[in-house]
């Protein structure tokens, strides 16, 4: 094992044992002397004003320390900018306890601070609030005609608006040999990570706090807190050692962070604010979306006209956008397109990126439309994708940095047994059950962003690498340790990756599947710089056998540096440290993606999902019997954690297709199933055989690792593959997700 590179090894999660044995501590589990507890009170109306909050009765309860409302909160930063964060869409960020105005149902309106959590929660339940309600609107479907174009802002850089129309869509469409048009309706979804949102703020004295927060970005939260409360950044330390899932919900600082820090600074005490499960439904969600498609193909099966429009929900205060309609023409090279994306502000909290935002929404519309078109033209759905294979990205007129999607189709189909499929819907059966095979293409952009990393050769001759990045449960700790280990040719045991702390070198928020490329590249840059420094030291040693060696002549291996030409020459890191007066050797470096080169390429991970469903013909019950996803995502750093990501994505896709929905009652503007008993995600009994294939893909452009993230790609193709399989089984096309089994009766 010793000399094998760590990259590419199926290493188990390094923190796995700590997590499953319960020793891993999460943000809401840190203690401090005299810790106070906060419980948030949320609005029960959707829009209007708070007339009065009767705090007196509650304050009289022994053990209740304070009730913070808009009336007694400290005066804070003034400008929208100061409330902004790395993931803030254009608009004015929501400010907790800003004033008496209610903008959405569930908005936090008070924080009760008490000596125990139970007491704070009890006090919250008896706090009397009177409101003056105003009329409101939360029903996207009934207000489609009021949609408008989104505002542009910094966020538009990462989420480009749709490309301009191309060719003459209407003519091409009406001239097409086959046409399909359809409408797709998606409801609200909530992230629902298992770990609840919590912030423990340790009060360290005047103007200084250490914050344990559930977040996907320690520095994001540090800047947010510093800006709002006017604290020196160096006096705000945000730590997020473990994150029990987030899926996007931690991309922005959430209101428990604000409230916890505010209370700690006001009361000069340490305080923890934990949100409960219902309160997870009071910020951020995947927005409901209405999509319309019109695709036309000519007689040889080539798609020549694509019209894809989408209307997404946003709040009244921010323009949250997703990339929904940009994908179709990257995947299928039609010459005539109209791609439009609009927003409809409603009286809701701002939507928030949720695993494969936009992409998983779009793929359902694109891939179902393609499936229907294939059906109309009597072409096998996979064959149809191959006929329409894009060798370059025609939407931007540039090549792909790499694209092995064709292999995904071929290898996935082979493994799945796609050839067994009888093209006729309702033609395959097993006893009482209808059997359906469906497939779909998946696509997710491979981005990377600048980041810094520190690399240290410790006094023990081991490697320590650090970055402020979080590990949201994806295996970041493990893969970064692997990447770092190869930099000095060390075994994993001799490498420590420190992370999840804003004191460490800069990393952006963890999302969009860009962490691996972003932080991994920073580690590589720092690793290279460290090797240089170490070699320099080694060369300066007395009688150094490496005196005349240059970079290319040496190998970092066996805990030291050896000569390529003579492996017997080995100076151990420990010896080098001794020569360095027993001091560690350290470097901090920044990696910056080469935008000038990268902008000439479309960079994306691809996938193909194949699904078999079984449907009870009389009762409609649906089971996803098996699924295969073939993924092309460049170099796979750790096949085990990567496979887990894909499996998790596939299960999420099953969830999206069949189970997951936040139920809204538009009469009240409230979400009605705010708990995991009624917000359905798949149970074990709903998940059967799942298989993952990683297709070989070499990418020499994308980054030094040649690696694309795999956090979202596993999800993207699953929901459409399932709905296509349901069509194949039953002949029914249900374009509203989730598909309830009774719709198949």
């Amino acid at each position, binding site marked *: 094992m010793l000399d094998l590179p760590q990259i590419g090894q199926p290493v188990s999660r390094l923190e796995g044992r700590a997590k499953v044995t319960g020793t891993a501590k999460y943000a809401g589990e840190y203690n401090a002397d005299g810790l106070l507890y906060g419980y948030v009170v949320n609005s*029960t109306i959707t829009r209007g004003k708070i007339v009065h909050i009767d705090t007196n009765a509650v304050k009289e309860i022994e053990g209740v320390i304070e009730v913070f409302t808009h009336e007694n909160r400290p005066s804070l930063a003034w400008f929208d900018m100061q409330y902004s964060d790395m993931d803030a869409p254009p608009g004015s960020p929501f400010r907790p306890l800003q004033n008496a105005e209610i903008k959405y149902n569930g908005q936090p309106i008070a924080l009760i601070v008490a000596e125990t959590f*139970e007491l704070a*929660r*009890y006090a919250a*339940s*008896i706090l009397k609030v009177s409101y003056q309600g105003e009329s409101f609107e939360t029903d996207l479907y009934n207000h489609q005609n009021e949609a408008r174009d989104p505002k542009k802002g910094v966020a538009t850089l990462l989420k480009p608006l749709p490309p301009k129309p191309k060719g003459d869509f209407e003519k091409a469409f009406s001239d097409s040999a086959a046409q399909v048009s359809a409408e797709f309706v998606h409801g609200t979804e909530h992230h629902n990570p298992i770990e609840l949102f919590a912030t423990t703020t340790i009060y360290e004295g005047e103007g200084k706090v250490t914050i344990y927060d559930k977040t996907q970005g320690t520095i994001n939260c540090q800047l947010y807190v510093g800006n709002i409360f006017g604290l020196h950044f160096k006096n705000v330390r945000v730590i997020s050692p473990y994150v029990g899932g987030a899926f996007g919900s931690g991309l922005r600082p959430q209101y428990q962070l604000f409230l916890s820090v505010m209370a700690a600074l006001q009361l000069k005490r340490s305080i923890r604010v934990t949100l409960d499960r219902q309160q997870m439904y009071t910020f951020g969600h995947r927005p409901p979306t209405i999509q319309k498609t019109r695709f036309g193909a000519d007689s040889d099966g080539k798609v020549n006209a694509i019209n894809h429009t989408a209307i997404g929900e946003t709040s009244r205060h921010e323009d949250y956008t997703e990339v929904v309609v940009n994908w179709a023409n990257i995947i299928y090279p039609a010459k005539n397109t109209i791609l439009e994306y609009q927003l409809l502000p409603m009286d809701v909290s701002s939507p928030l990126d949720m695993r494969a935002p936009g992409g998983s929404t779009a793929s359902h519309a694109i891939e179902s439309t393609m499936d229907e078109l294939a059906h109309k033209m009597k072409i096998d759905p996979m064959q149809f994708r191959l006929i329409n294979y894009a060798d370059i990205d025609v939407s931007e007129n540039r090549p792909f940095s790499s694209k092995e999607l064709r292999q995904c189709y071929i290898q996935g189909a082979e493994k799945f047994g796609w050839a067994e499929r009888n093209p006729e819907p309702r033609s395959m059966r097993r*006893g*009482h059950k209808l059997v359906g095979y469906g497939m779909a293409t998946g696509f997710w952009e491979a981005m990377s962003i600048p980041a810094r990393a520190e690399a240290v050769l410790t006094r023990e001759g081991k490697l320590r690498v650090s970055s402020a990045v979080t590990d949201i449960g994806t295996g970041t700790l493990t893969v970064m340790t692997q990447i770092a280990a190869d930099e000095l040719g060390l075994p994993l045991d001799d490498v420590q990756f420190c992370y999840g702390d804003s004191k460490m070198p800069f990393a952006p928020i963890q999302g969009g599947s860009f962490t691996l490329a972003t932080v991994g590249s920073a580690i590589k840059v720092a690793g290279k710089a460290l090797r240089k420094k170490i070699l320099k030291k080694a060369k300066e040693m007395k009688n150094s056998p490496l005196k005349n060696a240059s970079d290319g002549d040496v190998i970092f291996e066996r805990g030291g540096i050896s000569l390529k030409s003579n492996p017997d020459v080995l100076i151990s890191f420990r010896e080098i440290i001794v020569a360095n007066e027993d001091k560690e050797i350290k470097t901090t470096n920044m990696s910056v993606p080469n935008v000038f080169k990268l902008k000439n390429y479309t960079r994306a991970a691809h996938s193909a999902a194949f699904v078999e469903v079984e449907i*009870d013909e*009389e*009762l*409609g*019950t649906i*089971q996803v019997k098996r699924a295969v996803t073939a993924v092309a995502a460049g170099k796979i750093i750790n096949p085990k954690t990567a496979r887990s990501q894909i499996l998790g994505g596939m299960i999420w896709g099953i969830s999206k297709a*069949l*189970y997951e929905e936040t*139920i*809204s*009652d538009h*009469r*009240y503007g*409230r979400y*009605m*199933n*705010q*708990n995991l*008993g*009624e917000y*359905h995600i*798949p*149970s*074990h*009994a*709903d998940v059967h055989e799942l298989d993952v294939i990683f297709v070989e893909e070499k990418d020499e452009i994308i980054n030094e690792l040649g690696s694309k993230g795999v956090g979202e790609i596993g999800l993207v193709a699953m929901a459409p593959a399932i709905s296509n399989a349901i069509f194949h089984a039953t002949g029914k096309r249900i374009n509203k997700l989730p598909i*309830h*089994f*009774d719709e198949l*009766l």
Partner: protein
Amino acid sequence: MHNFNYAQAQNIGEAIEFAKGNESAKFIAGGTNLIDLLKYNITTANMLVDINHVPEHHLIEEKSDGGVRLGAFVTNADTAYHPLIESRYPLLSKAILAGASAQIRNMATNGGNLLQRTRCYYFYDPATPCNKREPGTGCSAIGGYNRIMAVLGTSENCIAVFPSDMCVALAALQAVVNITGPEGDRSMPFADFHRLPGDTPHLDNNLKTDEIIVSIDLPEKGFDKNYSYLKLRDRSSYAFALVSVATGLELENNLIKEARIALGGLAHKPWRVEKAEDFLKDKEPTMSNFASAAEMILFGATGFEHNSFKIELAKRAIVRNCMMALNPESQQPGAQPSL
């Protein structure tokens, strides 16, 4: 959650004493429903009387009349896996195992199962009107999101469903509920235990607040040869029934000697229509006979905006489940459809 006092009863007499005359006292058994209700501020109790330490009623035992008695404090899991239940009342065992999750069944008790409250979303959300939670405020489910609501026995005041699986089997088996209280012991046929909402939707059943369920009696006849429980729901486990059916058949010379069919997920109580069961008597166990019975059982069902599908689904489920009862070995775990 509001503060409450806690008292551990060492025997039934003490439990009754603790709760006597106190409308706001609650017995706590497994707590799987009660604690949620307290946390959501749906129920408040000034006193929780813990009945888990009462030494009696923790057994499942054969009775001299040939039946079996289920102690009220036996857990759902222990009941489902008890050899007497598995062998003589497999329908009950299957129904229990179709409910909740393994963890919840390990805590939930037989008494508590009968008394669990509806899963109507509005009932659980104090910010919305609900006649069951706050009589007189109105019913949000009528005119709201009512996919999971009732289609039988509803009233203009409430269309909630009683969510138990276990009780559907108990209804089919014609169990008897044994009760004790300040005024002594009494027994109630299962069919009389739960109520329809009528104009008192806040009352789920006919147990008085200071009474305790001590046991449930199963009559001798357990339909152990031909039985089936089918549960249709939005996911394969850990979801309440949209429609469930418990069927027990007694066959002789390919004729139905006796049939029991009870439905869950459709009404404010487990639903049985004796006329339909009588109709099946001495008939052949065919799909068309079961379909006729299904029509009778669903007679008068009315759907609401999102749940009309339940009517047709229930009819089909009845037919399927009766056919499954003819082949009990074909049954799937989780009471999923088979054949």
